[in-house]
């Protein structure tokens, strides 16, 4: 029951892991017990407090689909405007807002949340566990996404939506050229929404690495999990540059810190670098989950194991890394040195190889098997047709001379729609039609789905194939009228007509899903006869997924006997006899069971915390900065309360997961899921820090601006101040390490004191820094100091939290409480402070 293609080592693993089967019980009793414990709260309150991955995954996807519809309606307004050369349908101001919001909604409010939703909903089912690693974080991510999206939509309704294009190039998006709050809505709204992306990335990473069914080796797990692992790692490394860029631009707009102002040593290209450091990997972040769905569905549709499991995993590995070496191909026309053009052109061509490996593996699978033309297969064929064409025009655009000709024309618009609709929307439609029986428990109503597919295919290619020609004839992107170019008229009119056809197709697709959910007949279990664990459960899938968790015995078998085994409690950790939400935490490599994690239940805390963050965002939007600063106090207090919720208040006795096999609960085990999550978060944090270092290096080396006035940061006094700061943080790190080893409160107290000393030193240093509005490098120095200060502040908070745990008697030799997490955070803070101090001192000395 792992992946159909994986070599079958599972039987041997079962013996190696020696996990005897639990005695069978009455399935209905187990179901009732588990359903009661894992149920959402009843009524409307349940809508606000649910933390179940099944509920939230579906909610993510449904909300994303609503945003897709809104983005689609905006695209129809664009097409209506362009249908004639002097369209009077929209004025320029509204046209600019609408195309900006169309792109922003589709990228940030549809595609990313949709893939997050699919991962959150599907991964626990596919991996044989009961929920994601951090259910409250899932909920927090959803509310941040919803509130951020609503802020952006509200701005559109009031005519103050962003209008500078979805990539918000400076200086157009700077305060001088974009007064008002339009650009701030984008910067703050998108950053708010990206909390959900980072939250999802952290928990997807931890869930895949630490929660697979015992015996499901990393090298044998379903390909979808490999794809999602690659995606989540890319999100951890890819989103921080965007967040860094957004923070810098918002600081420039709000406080006149000139990161992108050429006159004061800034450079607009820094924004482009930071944006596309995120923006290009983003394409693969969107594509990989879709490819994961394809790799899951194609073998089932073709009744054969997938071809080249190992080659596909290697291709994912290649894509994850290579996609970070392409970002400059979006900037080929900005005056990049020739040699750099060649580097990025070569990388852009090379990335086609791992993509092609997957395409050929899927084609080979279809060739080897006996394809059955069910509705998901229609959309898969639509994917092949569309995505391959988009990939080939991508290779064209990777070639510098062609890129110079086609840059910023409708050709690029056509290319990106072929890639994104081909590489994401068609696979997502295949996924929706494939997993709908698991979601609804109902069979689809035949006929409408096939018709919707054909209308979408004809509408899509009619719209966007033509747009290649429009672009090759020179039509730029983002213009609202073209009175002097009659040669573009019929092409645009054709695109507009087919655009409406495509929209009708999507409406039919949505109607088909609604009909299935409401009118479909009851579906039998495992209708596709799939070999994966997601179908080894009742339809529709319950919140708890499995009455007992699959182990090596179940992984070595397939079919209905596995489903019955699990339903009757013959798997591991059957039911919920202790009345709490429990799942197994396993080792990274061979998935050996290590301990039992007790997950938090339903909670309104994520909603309240995200609402508090929303208040901060709104106050920033309103320019009420002192109040916004004050709004962070309740945010910090709620995070403290959140941490308190991690403490177990029930019996931490070991749990018997199988006859004779007892495991400790998470409060008495290391490393816990929370510790793994912190490591994942620090990957993102490190990427954020690296983005700031890149900015500093870029402005120091590349910017042709006059040098800054000699910085005071290089004096002996400031050098000593930095030494005190770094020394205090290093001592705090040592104290945290000792505290974690010895569990002695004295070390924690010492760590707290060292952190406070570091904060005092930092405050003094901040006063020595030059005016950050004077020069971009001064502004970046201030940001670096802020980064270190924020981390030291959090480290102090963690040390105080641990002290509070001592006071409450929640830390002892077997139960380390917050100490392991504090130790890791403190070490990270010390290392980044050291790097920042050295870089700032050296950079200040040479400026």
């Amino acid at each position, binding site marked *: 029951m792992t992946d159909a293609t994986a070599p079958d080592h599972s039987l041997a693993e079962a013996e190696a892991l020696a996990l005897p089967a639990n005695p069978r019980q009455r399935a209905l009793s187990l179901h009732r017990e588990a359903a009661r414990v894992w149920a959402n709260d009843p009524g409307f309150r349940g809508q606000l407090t649910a933390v179940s991955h099944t509920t939230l995954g579906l909610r993510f996807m449904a909300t994303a689909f609503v945003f897709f519809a809104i983005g689609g309606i905006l695209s129809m307004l664009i097409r209506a405007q362009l249908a004639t050369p002097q369209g009077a349908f929209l004025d320029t101001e509204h046209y600019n807002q609408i195309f900006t919001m169309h792109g922003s909604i589709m990228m940030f409010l549809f595609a990313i949340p949709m893939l997050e939703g699919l991962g959150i909903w599907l991964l626990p089912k596919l991996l044989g566990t009961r929920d994601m690693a951090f259910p409250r974080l899932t909920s927090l991510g959803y509310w941040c996404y919803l509130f951020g999206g609503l802020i952006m939509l509200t701005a559109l309704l009031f005519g103050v939506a962003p209008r500078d294009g979805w990539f918000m190039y400076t200086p157009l998006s700077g305060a001088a050229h974009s007064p008002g709050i339009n650009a701030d809505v984008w910067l703050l709204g998108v950053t708010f929404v990206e909390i959900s992306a980072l939250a999802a990335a952290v928990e997807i990473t931890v869930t895949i690495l630490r929660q697979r069914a015992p015996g499901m080796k990393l090298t044998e797990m379903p390909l979808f999990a490999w794809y999602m692992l690659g995606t989540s790692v890319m999100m951890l490394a890819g989103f921080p540059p965007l967040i860094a860029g957004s923070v810098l631009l918002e600081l420039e707009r709000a406080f006149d810190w000139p990161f992108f102002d050429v006159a004061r040593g800034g450079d607009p290209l820094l924004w482009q670098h930071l944006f596309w450091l995120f923006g290009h990997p983003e394409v693969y972040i969107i594509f990989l989950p879709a490819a994961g769905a394809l790799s899951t569905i194609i073998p089932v549709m073709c009744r054969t194991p997938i071809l080249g499991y190992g080659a596909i995993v290697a291709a994912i590995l290649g894509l994850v890394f290579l996609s970070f070496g392409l970002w400059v191909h979006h900037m080929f026309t900005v005056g990049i040195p020739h*040699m750099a053009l060649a580097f990025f052109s070569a990388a852009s061509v090379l990335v086609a190889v791992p993509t092609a490996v997957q395409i050929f593996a899927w084609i080979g699978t279809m060739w080897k098997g006996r394809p059955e033309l069910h509705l998901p297969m229609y959309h898969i064929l639509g994917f092949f047709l569309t995505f391959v064409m988009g990939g080939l025009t991508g290779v064209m655009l990777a070639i510098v001379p062609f890129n110079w000709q086609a840059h910023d024309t409708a050709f690029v618009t056509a290319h990106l729609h072929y890639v994104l609709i081909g590489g994401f929307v068609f696979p997502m439609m295949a996924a929706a039609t494939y997993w709908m029986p698991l979601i609804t428990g109902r069979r689809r109503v035949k006929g409408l789905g096939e018709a919707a597919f054909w209308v979408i295919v004809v509408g899509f290619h009619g719209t966007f194939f033509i747009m290649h020609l429009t672009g090759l004839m020179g039509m730029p992107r983002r213009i609202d009228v073209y009175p002097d170019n009659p040669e573009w008229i019929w092409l645009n009119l054709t695109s507009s007509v087919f655009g409406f056809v495509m929209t009708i197709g999507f409406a039919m697709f949505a109607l088909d899903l609604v009909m299935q959910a409401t009118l479909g007949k009851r579906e039998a279990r495992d209708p596709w006869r799939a070999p994966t664990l997601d179908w080894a459960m009742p339809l529709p899938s319950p919140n708890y997924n499995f009455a007992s968790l699959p182990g090596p015995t179940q992984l070595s078998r397939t079919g209905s006997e596995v489903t019955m085994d699990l339903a009757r409690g013959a798997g591991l950790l059957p039911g919920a006899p202790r009345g709490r939400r429990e799942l197994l935490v396993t080792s990274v490599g061979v998935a050996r069971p290590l301990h039992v994690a007790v997950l938090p239940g339903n909670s309104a805390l994520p909603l309240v915390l995200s609402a508090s963050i929303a208040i901060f965002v709104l106050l920033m939007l309103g320019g009420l900065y002192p109040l916004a600063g004050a709004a962070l106090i309740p945010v910090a207090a709620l995070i403290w309360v959140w941490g308190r919720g991690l403490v177990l208040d029930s019996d931490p006795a070991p749990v018997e997961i199988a006859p004779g096999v007892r495991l400790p609960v998470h409060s008495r085990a290391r490393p816990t899921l929370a510790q793994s999550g912190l490591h994942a978060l620090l990957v993102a944090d490190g990427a954020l820090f690296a983005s700031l270092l890149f900015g500093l290096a870029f402005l120091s080396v590349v910017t042709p601006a006059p040098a800054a006035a000699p910085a005071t940061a290089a004096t002996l006094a400031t050098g000593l101040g930095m030494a005190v700061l770094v020394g205090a943080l290093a001592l705090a790190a040592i104290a945290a390490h000792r505290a974690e080893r010895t569990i002695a409160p004295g070390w924690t107290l010492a760590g707290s004191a060292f952190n406070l000393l570091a904060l005092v030193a930092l405050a003094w240093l901040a006063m020595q820094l030059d005016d950050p509005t004077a020069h971009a490098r001064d502004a970046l120095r201030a940001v670096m100091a802020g980064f270190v200060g924020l981390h030291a502040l959090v480290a102090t908070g963690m040390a105080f939290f641990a002290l509070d745990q001592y006071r409450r008697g929640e830390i002892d030799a077997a139960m380390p409480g917050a100490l392991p997490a504090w130790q890791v955070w403190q070490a990270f803070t010390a290392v980044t402070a050291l790097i920042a101090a050295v870089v700032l001192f050296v950079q200040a000395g040479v400026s």
Partner: protein
Amino acid sequence: MRWLALSLAGPMLWAVMFSLVYGLHGAICAEIPGPEGLGIGARLLLVGAWGLGIAAHLALLWRVPAQGGMTAQALPRAGAWIGLFATVFTLFPVLMATSC
């Protein structure tokens, strides 16, 4: 975990080399006003860095055991090849390009 780290080693090394050579080229080109040709010293530096990277990749390839055939267990070996090929292909312009 060691298996995972070995799998990531090849592509990570490419990422390091790509950043290093790109950064080095940025620093060199910042010193050259206008579209002038690269000096012999600058070119040697870039080609040397590229060669060093290839050597490191070859050393990694030599260290990583060949096992697992065409399965995912062979990922460390595949990763080493991916890294080597990516470094050779994406940085070969240090040989060809004549100017900034």
